[in-house]
């Protein structure tokens, strides 16, 4: 397998087959919180993609150039969290400056990306699978793409379901969770697509 197609398989595998949200069930709280309107979902997915890719690369650099040579693997989680927090704060300032409406609409969910388990999850998985630099970057970007794809689809779905005549006890996030469940049911069909 020439490395080129191997990376492609890794990318497709991360985006579709073991999707970070619907198969690995990481990053569910922003997934449920921000998916009320399509516009906000697009804004949030752009911010998360930026953060996730950057922190995947950053955590690889920290892990292989600082922690490993000094033998401090046990500090891995704290170091990653610091890096992610820095990246998120940086993104928050950029978004606040460029589009204040998006900043206000995302509200609490922008700083919450720091606690988004998908971000830390990707960093730790990268280390666990001993991905090299390029692989961890692709894995980070792929996971972010997967998260964005599913988030935007879910936002469009929720906008349609909000208009539906849902029974009283199921309205709001209850029907949202059921829809997310059915979505992961559909994603099960893609298992085994990539033998990774």
């Amino acid at each position, binding site marked *: 397998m020439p490395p080129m197609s191997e990376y492609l398989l890794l990318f497709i595998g991360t985006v579709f087959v073991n999707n970070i949200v619907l198969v690995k069930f990481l990053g569910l709280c922003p997934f449920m919180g921000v998916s009320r309107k399509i516009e906000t979902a697009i804004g949030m997915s752009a911010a998360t993609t930026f953060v996730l890719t950057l922190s995947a690369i950053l955590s690889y650099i920290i892990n292989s150039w600082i922690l490993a040579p000094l033998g401090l693997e046990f500090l891995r989680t704290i170091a990653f969290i610091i890096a992610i927090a820095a990246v998120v704060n940086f993104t928050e300032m950029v978004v606040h400056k460029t589009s204040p409406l998006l900043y206000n609409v995302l509200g609490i969910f922008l700083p919450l990306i720091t606690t988004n388990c998908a971000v830390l999850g990707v960093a730790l998985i990268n280390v666990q699978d001993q991905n090299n630099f390029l692989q961890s970057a692709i894995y980070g970007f792929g996971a972010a793409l997967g998260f964005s794809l599913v988030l935007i689809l879910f936002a469009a779905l929720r906008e*349609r379901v909000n*208009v539906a005549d849902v029974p009283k006890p199921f309205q709001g996030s209850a029907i949202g969770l059921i829809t997310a469940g059915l979505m992961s049911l559909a994603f099960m069909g893609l298992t085994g697509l990539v033998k990774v």
Partner: protein
Amino acid sequence: MSIKLHKFHGGLHTEDHKKGSLISGLQQATLPAQLILPLKQHIGDSNKPLVSVGDRVLRGQLIADSSSAISAPVHASSSGIVSEIGARPVPHPSGQSDLCIVIDVDGKDESIKQKTSPIENLSGAELIDKIQRAGIVGLGGAVFPTAAKLARGNDLGIKTLIINGAECEPYITCDDTLMQNYAAEVVSGIAYLQCILKPENTLIGIEDNKPAAIKSIQLAIEKSPLSQTEVVSIPTIYPSGGEKQLIKILTGKEVPASKLAFDIGLFCQNVGTCVAITRALEHDQALISRIVTLSGNGIQNPGNWEVWLGTPVSHLIELAGGYKINQAKSQHLVMGGPMMGFSLSSDAVPIVKASNNILVMQQQTIPLTPGYHDECVRCAKCVEVCPAQLLPQQLYWQARAKNHERSEEYHLFDCIECGCCAAVCPSQIPLVQYYRAEKSEIRTARQAHFKSDRARLRFEFREQRLLLKKQQDEERRRLKREALQKKNPKIPDRKVEVDPVQAALERVKARKQTQAAEPRNTTNLTPEQQQQIEEADARRRAAREQPK
């Protein structure tokens, strides 16, 4: 037919039910006992009555007018005594009442003196003013004041004048009868319009299910001196009579979304209005009568009548031989066609400028209450028929959810309420009512927003004014103080720090002392004053013992 016809998207092929009301041709309606003339029979600002109860009015006399540009005055349709000016049921979807002038007809039908002044040398503006004074409105159903529309068209310049004789809605045949009987007046009306608007060419669109009307108009045109005027027979498909759809069929152009036909140099006018213009300019006769069709399966013999405005519908139904099944309760009265008309609350409502057809249907043929309607299954049959190329199912969900922002995003205000979508919907959803409700909801929201913007401007202006006033007071006080400084410089500058409370206390103490030193008026008295005081004290003591 020299021009190439175009097709508009969607539309419905429905049975036109027009034969029934055409058999008996045009008949003259008799005068009713009472004429009920609503003050507002047009789109625009309402009129104010110029007559009062008890006045005698003649036929064609002006009885209500308004100062605003977008309005159309109301004239008496026949001579008689004004018996009442009050709220009467009027033809309106709400079934509510509105201010009407009620005239008890005296049967003499005396008209005011018509001054038939020559109109050849009148300029466009004077013609428009004569049309405005005659109270002429679009008789196709829009009832927009024609004078205002002509003025607007004149400013923007008109390339093509389109005369709408399509009359695409089922059951309605009033334009068809008009074209067959008054072809000459239609053509002279077109001539006047051409002389006002000076268009390059004129097209008269008539649906091909009215061959008699097409032939009679063509004959009239050949006899007239008109040039660049052409009758075009267009395919029969509902709603080809809609202004935007007729423009697309005849010229292939599309009126831009939120704009009017003027903006692309087109002017659309109904054939009925042309006849009204001719009568106004040539015989100086105001809009006091119009042709009304009476159709439907609930009436004895349907037909077309030239009716005086203000005639109650019940009088018209008697003329047509009354209801088939004579309990009025089971009838469903609709003013206008089955696709775009509205149901009437009772048959006491009068005929107004906008009533082209009274449809009398038995209850069971047209459901009165919608009954149960299934949910939308997104089959998109409505998208196939929508002439405005919209997404009716999306508009339905957003209207149901009262999501005004998304409704406007899906172009709700481009919907012409033609009813095609609701007619083909397999779930029988009353789509047009959802859209009309959502439109009025958005209109009230817009008015509220306009009002709140004005309120904010006035509030901010008031804040500035008060601030300015405060600054000016400060300024004036400072100037006065400086002036005092200049006048008597020796008064030490009041800047010395005097505790205001302390100063007040000293002033009070000083005042008390001066009061104590003052002579009281009971000290150094002359002997007689002393003697008078004793006598007074004695009387007072006596009065005190005496009542005991």
